[in-house]
């Protein structure tokens, strides 16, 4: 069994020092890897990324993250990624990484993702260049995610996103903003790539559990949804349901 700890949307700022780390103290006893589903920082400032890195410094697990929209706000995303990598956090964007866990290999493919909407209420790349650019950004990220998943040759594959790949996990959010919270294109990539699990954040008022159209479990791990510092998902076991 591989135990995956996950959270997203912690929105660390200069005023956040010491808020998260106490809740991660015994995480090594509970999980084998930590995945972070974006919005690590409040506005994507390098100082905020340093605070985030120091909050995770005591976590003795492989750490993998994607950025979220907040992490792009100040146009310092490249520096943010470098700071995180210096803090031993692997940051994925259209790429994958492999983690060796308890004799099994876990593949993680990640992308921030983007919006566009879901069945019957989607943006279409038609008309003005601005709407085409919006849709094509999501299309490109979805293609990269699918490619990264397909390239993995591991026992299990997890898709790590910030934006949602299905609308199940958006329940609780206003319907009108669904197109800004995720895209079916990301779900299609998750399905085609053969993922065992997809994790995302971004939708703070959403719901934890859902699935893609192809039946892949999707979990919204935004901290306001979880109501706790992180959740643990076990994959690769005998499949007996056991929740606490």
């Amino acid at each position, binding site marked *: *069994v591989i*135990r995956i*700890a996950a959270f997203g949307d*912690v*929105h*660390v*700022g200069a*005023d*956040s020092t010491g*808020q998260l780390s106490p*809740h991660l103290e015994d*995480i090594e006893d*509970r*999980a084998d890897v930590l995945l972070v589903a974006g919005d690590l920082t*409040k*506005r994507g400032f390098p100082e905020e990324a340093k605070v985030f890195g120091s909050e995770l410094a005591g976590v003795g697990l492989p750490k993998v993250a994607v950025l979220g929209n*907040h992490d792009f*706000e100040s146009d310092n995303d490249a520096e943010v990624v470098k700071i995180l990598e210096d803090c031993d956090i692997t940051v994925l964007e259209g790429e994958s990484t492999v983690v060796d866990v308890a004799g099994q290999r876990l593949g993680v493919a990640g992308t921030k993702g983007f919006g566009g909407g879901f069945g019957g209420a989607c943006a279409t790349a038609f008309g003005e260049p601005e709407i085409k650019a919006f849709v094509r950004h999501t299309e490109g990220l979805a293609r990269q995610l699918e490619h990264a998943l397909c390239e993995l040759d591991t026992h299990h594959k997890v898709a790590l996103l910030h934006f949602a790949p299905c609308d199940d996990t958006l329940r609780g959010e206003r319907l009108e903003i669904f197109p800004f919270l995720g895209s079916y294109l990301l779900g299609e990539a998750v399905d085609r790539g053969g993922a*065992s*699990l997809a994790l995302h954040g971004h939708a*703070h*008022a959403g719901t934890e559990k859902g699935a893609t159209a192809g039946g892949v*479990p999707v*979990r919204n791990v935004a*901290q*306001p949804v*979880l*109501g*706790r*510092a*992180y*959740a*643990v*998902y*076990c*994959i690769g*076991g005998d*499949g*007996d*349901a*056991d*929740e*606490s």
Partner: protein
Amino acid sequence: MASSLEPEEYVVLHVREALAQDGRVSELGLEVSVRGGVLHITGPVSTEERRAAVAEVAGEIAPELTVANETHVMRYSGDASVEVLP
């Protein structure tokens, strides 16, 4: 700053925009409404500093309204949840 002649619906939208874009808050998911001349703001924020800033920013945008800052600082409860997937 919003004009006192502006319809309340627009004031609500300007406050929502400010709470997202102003670096003191940067929260996109807060609910804002006006009832009986009182601007109600609800939802979770990450820190006490950001909760205080919510009232500050809203007061700057809509000085003609009383601000009811009903946001709360997100607290972590209990241990991590554990789910075994098939």
